């Protein structure tokens, strides 16, 4: 069995609003990423994908607060660590994060090489500028970015180029886990493909040991990650291999998400896209039973009477529904 790079046990985090209300954006999430594996997280806007990413890094700043659970990165338990300590010893070397608007993270008044010097010297103050330049040039060439980029200002680069520069910079210290939060959502399809290729290269060449990829584009997840986890209202609703989740979803919400896939393949025009009606629940006052009950086609009264637990079936596959696997399959067949 390969080494576990990131393990999260029953992690719960909440936002505290101005009016002292608690919003549980990550609700008892457990996950495990092994060396060489990647995990995709899917779900619609506001389901807690990005909050989970922030929580995983142990990087808690108000209004986000840690409540319970454990985070273990490469054998080191970072639960309850001070955010400043996390920034010094964990971020960059153990875990790296690519935010959604990564390209806005570049300082417009400084050259790219300056940013890389900052990153490396913050962790290894003794490194000389020459060493850094050699390392950065080699790394950029290997990842398909011309070395001239290093001497340019961010305004001279295109959107896709900026995004790839930020990715290359964030993994320059060879982190164990890379968290990519919608790295391609602001780009057009051509640049998107380059970003995806780059992430794959990083994994193959071993610069990052494991990856968590967050997006709402399911075809992308299917092509990039080994496993897919579907989130709804801060909870895991389904987890399995990419193949299983995309072609054989069990949870009604995952099933609904698969109905919104658009790919330019023969036969697409005959399929009617099905959107899930309604809106996600207000997490200030979450419903007592199943979170998805209000929007579910197959709802029965028992769904709302008690909280629904995760069911585990063969392999590592889990889902959160009141029905058993056989019952669900029967319901879907009758549709």
């Amino acid at each position, binding site marked *: 069995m390969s080494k576990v790079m990131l393990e999260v046990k029953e992690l719960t985090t909440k936002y505290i609003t101005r009016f002292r209300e608690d919003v549980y954006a990550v609700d008892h999430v457990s996950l495990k990423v092994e060396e060489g594996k990647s995990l995709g997280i899917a779900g619609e806007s506001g389901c807690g994908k990005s909050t989970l990413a922030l929580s995983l890094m142990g990087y808690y700043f108000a209004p986000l607060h840690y409540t319970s659970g454990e985070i273990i990165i490469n054998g080191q338990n970072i639960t309850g660590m001070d955010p400043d300590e996390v920034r010094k010893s964990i971020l960059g070397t153990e875990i790296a994060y690519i935010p959604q608007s990564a390209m806005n993270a570049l300082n417009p008044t400084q050259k790219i090489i300056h940013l890389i010097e900052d990153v490396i010297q913050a962790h290894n103050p003794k490194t000389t500028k020459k060493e850094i330049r050699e390392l950065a040039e080699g790394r950029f060439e290997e990842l398909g970015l011309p070395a001239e980029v290093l001497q340019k200002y961010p305004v001279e680069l295109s*959107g896709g180029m900026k995004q790839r520069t930020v990715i290359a910079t964030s993994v320059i210290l060879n982190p164990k886990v890379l968290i990519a939060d919608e790295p391609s959502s602001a780009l057009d*399809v051509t640049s998107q493909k380059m970003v995806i*290729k780059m992430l794959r290269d990083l994994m193959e060449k071993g610069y990052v040991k494991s990856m968590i990829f967050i997006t709402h584009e399911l075809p992308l997840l299917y092509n990039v990650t080994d496993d897919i986890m579907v989130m709804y209202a801060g909870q895991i609703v389904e987890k399995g291999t990419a193949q299983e989740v995309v072609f054989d979803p069990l949870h009604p919400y995952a099933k609904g998400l698969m109905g919104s*896939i658009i*790919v330019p393949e023969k036969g697409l*025009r005959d399929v009617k*896209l099905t*959107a899930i009606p309604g809106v996600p629940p207000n997490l200030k006052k979450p419903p007592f039973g199943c979170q998805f009950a209000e929007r579910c086609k197959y709802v029965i009264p028992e769904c709302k009477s008690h909280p629904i637990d995760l069911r585990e079936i063969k392999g590592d596959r889990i889902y959160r529904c009141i029905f058993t696997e056989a019952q669900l399959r029967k319901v879907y067949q009758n549709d």
Partner: protein
Amino acid sequence: MTDEKKSCLKGIGLTKVFGLGRQKTVAVDHVNFDICEGEFVSIVGESGSGKTTLAKMLLGLISISEGEIYFQGEKRDISSQRKKQEYWKNIQAIFQDPFSSYNIFNKIDTLFLDCISMRGGRHLPHEKKVEMMTEACSFVNLKFEELTNKYPFELSGGQMQRLMIARIFLLKPKILVADEPTSMIDACSRATILDMLMRLRNEIGMTIIFITHDIGLAYYISDTVYIMEHGKIVESGTADQVILNPKEAYTKRLISDVPKIHEEWDLSTVNYS
């Protein structure tokens, strides 16, 4: 698309040049097209291929360097502000970023009342106006009572984009130019937005010009597809023709750039440049 359909919007040799002398950039280069009434047209191309510039020319937001636009068989005349306003009753747009499409100081009902006035309903009784606004909101699956006293910033991105469609429903223009209306919205709401655009075409008979970089969307939704590369239209035809049997290398590349699920997605063709 049948022969008896009337031409709605026609462009001959449309060109837009930005800058002068050595700085000159040809953003749209001698583009010809003929869009029939009730047709759903997609314009597909990567960033910087001139899609949005073309849309702005059609809308009359920027001047045309060369070429003519014919609207319903007649040459378009927007020489004065009054004529422009008359033209905008026939052509409307939805833009990419719903957050910057609103006047932040106006409440939602003010926005809708403006639309009703523009259609000549200024002197209708108030109950009639409320009825029209409720109808428009229910077209996009929103409840008017919940929105009436809200400011745009109190809404989510998906709600804002749907309200933009409700606005189009009230105005009922002949042509709608939708410039990447789904690119800032997540995949689940995207299906809803596309469905509403389809209904605008099917129920009201609106002509829709849909601009996107995602060829999958274009294939799903449109009758006719135009592929743009560096300001030129390189390939056009029905959606089935263009996407299932692409002729140009550029079209093939656009199709290969979109992730697939039933076929292998080849990443080895990526050319970093």
